[in-house]
């Protein structure tokens, strides 16, 4: 698996709106996202 190319991502979950998120950490198997995206 390739690392995500940006820390700032969009999460898409069926039946929900898309959500902005930030990649806190990632490995080949797991991505940990923070949904508490703060305004710049």
């Amino acid at each position, binding site marked *: 698996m390739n690392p995500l190319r*940006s820390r*700032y*991502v*969009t999460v898409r979950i069926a039946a929900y709106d898309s959500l902005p998120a930030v990649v806190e950490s990632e490995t*080949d*198997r*797991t991505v940990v996202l*923070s949904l508490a995206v703060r305004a*710049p």
Partner: protein
Amino acid sequence: MRVECSTPRGVQRVTGVAHWDPARPDELRVQRESEELIQRRESVRVDAVVPGLLIAVEGQSARAATTTVNVSGTGLLVRDPLGLAIGERVRLELELEAGARPVAVEGRVVRDAGADAKGLQFEAVSRGDQDRLARFIAERQRAELRIGRR
């Protein structure tokens, strides 16, 4: 569920299973199952008037102040005071934040949108500037969603 981010080449998409722990409500842990790079434009495009400097890379390196019409992670629509031709290579320095270093993108004119507007497709953006663009787009998208819910 899917996790997506914009890149100059398209959208990078990771598909997997999400695990949410009520003890950590702001955190989502995603078990990766597959990954793909979608070459076509599928990234979020937000309306945004961002001031910047448009520079024609080829020829006499003409330059002019401009503003964007909309912005995505893979390209944008920009006012074109230089009369650029389809296929022409350009550099654009965008003032996303007042007082901060401009975001620099290099790309090519891919569309004539009329009314002096040209569509640019990004070909080279640094990782740092890509992150700043993505953050800007995400914030604009969030603002649009907030307005839409009122």
